């Protein structure tokens, strides 16, 4: 068997499978394909027919500028040693063992696919949803297009003040006219057109200085066509601890954030049809429901800030309770990765068990040869899209170091043709990058006719049909 000849040559390229075609998958592919040596072939897999992960299905439809990063990803995809296999799912269509037969290295970039629960009574009442489901729904994610949200409710609570929470609140507050110029899913546009939502409460457990949202995001909330914004003056007043921390380590962005929020406290209502209320220093302790099991209110406890030994200001409940009547609740209190069949998982942090991106054996805590991870499933859900670039670079550096030391898998059939054959057999309805370019062209063309960036296909059947292929 000639399996132990050096790999990474033009005749025997180093073959890498990347699982997950989100930003991290592309950044990693880019880093790999830029190596002058070894010669590397990259196959990028995604369980959805379309690439770009959360850029397509997470980033809000009214934030097209953020989505422009896909132009960089498309450039990566033009590399002759890059291939894309969409609608091929690890654990369903192919297994880790399959990949071990065809690749020298496997890289998991599957992101943080589920939301954290609040862990309070009433969380599962009807009308209480993870914010991510709403996001995936309005963005036309095929798995979430059939979700139902009762938009006849007039009052909505969004728990959290991170960027997902802010997106959800903003989309709920946008007018139909504003949304109609975005690439929001058609069915979501239609549903939101008939929305009766009048008041949206964005609930932060800490103070304004600790809120995760950025200044452009909070400014944008103050410039909505059809929604006024307000905050409670006493909730945006800085407490002593925050004041002291800012005095010791001045931070212009944080001071500006507080300034913007404080300016909302004294803004008169201008008669817009919706009201967005940003609240601070409150934590949900229970969702209250009626006899039919539907949410009627969210019970909040007021918090105050206390300093931990490291100087972090944490929320501590005061015991003072308040019931906020709402008919709909979206929770956005964090995200976490989900374990994949055959891949070691670190339950403490809800990531793949890894050291700098090398997947570790749970028993020996030593690296498993040939398996790596990057992005949110490696470090948890933090940072902006671009943060995944240095993260992917760190993992790729480990991959190259191991390759140079000969620490790679020894696949039986390290060839592109063998993978083609396998995929054709396991998932005949897979989507290549040319398929994606075709879909992209159709979406953009439909968008041009409608004065929108694109009109999205939202089901695998529609995508297959548009390309003249039959879906089973």
């Amino acid at each position, binding site marked *: 068997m000639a399996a132990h000849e050096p790999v990474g040559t033009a005749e025997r390229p180093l073959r890498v499978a990347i699982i997950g075609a989100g930003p991290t998958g592309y950044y990693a592919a880019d880093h790999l394909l830029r190596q002058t040596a070894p010669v590397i072939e990259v196959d990028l897999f995604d369980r959805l027919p379309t690439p770009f992960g959360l850029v397509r299905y997470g980033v809000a439809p009214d934030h097209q*500028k*953020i989505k*422009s*990063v896909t*132009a*960089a990803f498309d450039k990566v995809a033009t590399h002759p040693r890059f291939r894309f296999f969409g609608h091929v799912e690890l654990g369903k269509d192919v297994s880790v063992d399959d990949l071990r037969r065809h690749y020298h290295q496997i890289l998991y970039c599957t992101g943080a696919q589920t939301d954290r629960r609040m862990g309070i009574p009433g969380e599962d009442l009807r009308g209480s949803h993870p914010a991510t489901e709403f996001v995936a729904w309005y963005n036309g994610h095929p798995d979430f297009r059939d979700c139902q949200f009762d938009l006849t409710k007039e009052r909505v609570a969004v728990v959290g003040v991170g960027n997902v929470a802010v997106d959800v609140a903003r989309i709920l507050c946008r007018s139909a006219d504003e949304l109609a110029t975005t690439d929001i899913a058609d069915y979501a546009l239609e549903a939101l057109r008939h929305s009766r939502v009048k008041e949206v409460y964005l609930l932060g457990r800490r103070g304004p200085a*600790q809120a995760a949202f950025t200044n452009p995001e909070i400014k944008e909330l103050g410039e909505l066509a059809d929604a006024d914004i307000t905050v409670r003056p006493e909730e945006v007043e800085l407490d002593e601890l925050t004041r002291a*921390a800012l005095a*010791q*380590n001045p*931070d212009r962005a944080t001071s500006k954030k507080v300034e913007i929020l404080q300016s909302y406290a004294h803004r008169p209502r201008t008669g817009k049809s919706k009201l967005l209320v940003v609240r601070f220093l409150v934590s949900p302790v229970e969702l209250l429901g009626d006899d039919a099991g539907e949410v009627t209110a969210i019970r909040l406890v007021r918090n105050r800030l206390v300093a*931990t*030994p*490291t*100087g*972090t*200001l*944490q929320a501590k409940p005061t015991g003072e309770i308040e019931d906020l009547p709402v008919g709909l609740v979206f929770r956005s209190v964090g995200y976490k990765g989900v374990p994949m069949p055959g891949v070691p998982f*670190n339950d*403490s*942090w809800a*990531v793949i*068990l*890894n*050291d*700098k*991106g090398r997947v*570790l054996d749970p028993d020996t*805590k030593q690296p498993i040869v040939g398996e790596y991870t990057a992005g949110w499933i*490696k*470090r*948890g859900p*933090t*940072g*902006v*899209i*671009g*943060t*995944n*670039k*240095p*993260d992917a670079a760190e993992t790729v550096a480990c991959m190259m170091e191991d390759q140079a030391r000969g620490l790679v898998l020894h696949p039986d059939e390290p060839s592109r043709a063998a993978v083609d054959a396998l995929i054709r057999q396991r998932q005949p309805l897979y989507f290549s990058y040319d398929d994606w370019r075709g879909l992209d062209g159709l979406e953009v063309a439909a968008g041009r006719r409608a004065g929108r960036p694109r009109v999205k296909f939202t089901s695998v059947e529609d995508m297959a049909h548009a390309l003249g292929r039959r879906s089973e």
Partner: protein
Amino acid sequence: MNIASLLASKGGNVITVGPQESIRSALGLLAQHNIGALVVVEGRGPVGIVSERDIVRALARTESILVQPIAAIMTREVIIGTPQDDLIAVGNTMTERRIRHLPVVEGGRLVGIVSIGDVVKAQRDQYQGEVDTLQFQILHEDEAKMRQAS
């Protein structure tokens, strides 16, 4: 960002020693794992921290120190973090108080150790990511405008 995300890609293996183990064994562990400090643990929780600096200082005083127990030279007043602590607050505190290693405890159990290097790297990656994202958007906008103009 909280410091849980720094620990998430560090393997979850924290190298610890007992207070009665010898300073020589601590030295061995520092060299073997290529690290700068060890958390000293008794039971489940940390009781101190011993760093390469502590050992160097002790050695400078008495060369025979290596056979002494770690308890003789470890720092007992240790600032301890939790996974939910803010990266920025941790960075500020470590810088101001000249701390190079922060044991992280959750529910009384030692779950990791964060070094000042980890903090700097996380902050650098965060800023690099933001700068990169913004730069790309600006360039892309300019290109789109130029295409429209031509």
